[in-house]
């Protein structure tokens, strides 16, 4: 397209510099306010709007595929009202328990973060506690996860496994022995017997 409006088209702020994400909970917060103005208290918009004070942002070349994968294979739960879809890219926040991880497009210019897929290496591992790690593992395997360490009992009193996602980010999923016992599972008497 080329016309007299080109100069203004070029001046669209998010073309000049992709916007930093707004506070991701703004939509949930504003909707909650709207609903309370309307006098509708039957719809609870969200259980917990606040993000933790620290969380990781993972970069993907195809963050849409990553979002689908993390939900389907690793059973992370997207905070749907936080999603910021910019058409050509996407920001999403995923929750596990009281933790959050953010995913977005690999961005070499502004945030200078890359996908392990383009680097050939990664420097981070996400540490995740889940309920019933055995079931979590079975589900991930059934969904075709790339398992980099099968389920093992660790000497420090946790059962864990590791998997690599579709672009090479590493995930460590674990459950504490106390939690395994609490759900009626069995744990080894002496887990330090050889495995670490």
């Amino acid at each position, binding site marked *: 397209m080329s016309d007299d409006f080109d100069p203004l088209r070029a001046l669209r702020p998010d073309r000049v510099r992709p916007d930093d994400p707004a506070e991701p909970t703004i939509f949930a917060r504003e909707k909650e306010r709207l609903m309370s103005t309307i006098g509708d208290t039957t719809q609870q918009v969200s259980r917990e709007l606040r993000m933790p004070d620290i969380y990781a942002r993972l970069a993907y070349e195809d963050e849409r595929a990553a979002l689908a994968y993390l939900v389907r294979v690793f059973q992370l739960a997207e905070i749907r009202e936080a999603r910021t*879809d910019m058409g050509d890219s996407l920001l999403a926040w995923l929750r596990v328990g009281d933790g959050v991880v953010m995913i977005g497009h690999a961005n070499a210019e502004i945030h200078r973060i890359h996908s392990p897929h383009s680097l050939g290496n990664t420097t981070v591992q996400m540490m995740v506690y889940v309920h019933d790690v055995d079931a979590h593992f079975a589900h991930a395997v059934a969904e075709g996860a790339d398992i980099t360490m099968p389920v093992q009992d660790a000497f420090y009193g946790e059962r864990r496994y590791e998997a690599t996602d579709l672009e090479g980010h590493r995930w460590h999923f674990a459950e504490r022995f106390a939690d395994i016992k609490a759900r009626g599972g069995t744990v080894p008497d002496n887990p330090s017997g050889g495995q670490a």
Partner: protein
Amino acid sequence: MTSESDAAVIRASLEEPGRFGALFDRHATVLFRYLVRRVGVDDAEALLGEVFRVGFEKRATYDGARPNARPWLYGIATHLLARHRRSEARRIHATARLLGRQAPAEDPTDHIATTLDAAVLWPHVADAVARLPIEERDALILYVWEELSYEEIASALDVPLGTVRSRLNRARMSLRELRASIGRQQ
């Protein structure tokens, strides 16, 4: 349920106010980006909820013949933005300075930028846009940044189609004159 038109949702919200929340779910992200483009994140955050609260108050007057309420919401947002002209001018000038510092090779408008230092060109454009009469600027931005059709703009600003055409034509002439005057300075 998801195929229910905005018009139907608005009609239902007259009886059941809570139904109006669906409009927020459908349109808040797009409207928010529009507000951010014009006045920046801080003002946009303050305005987003207001757009929908005003819409809620006015819902009884919604024209049920328009299934999609997005132009109507654009209109409410545009009306609220009129109180934020200073933020808007600041924002477009800041964007112009930023664009001016970028390499000319990245310019989508090479054909003029090559004839003039980008650092000089873009502030001129920003000035020209900021100086347009507000009704021309509103129509122009809805057309160029938001990519609304003439019909949608007419619906948003609640003016006849011919008025949208003439406003855009006047804005187009202003930008064309700007181009010519920059050319003469070379």
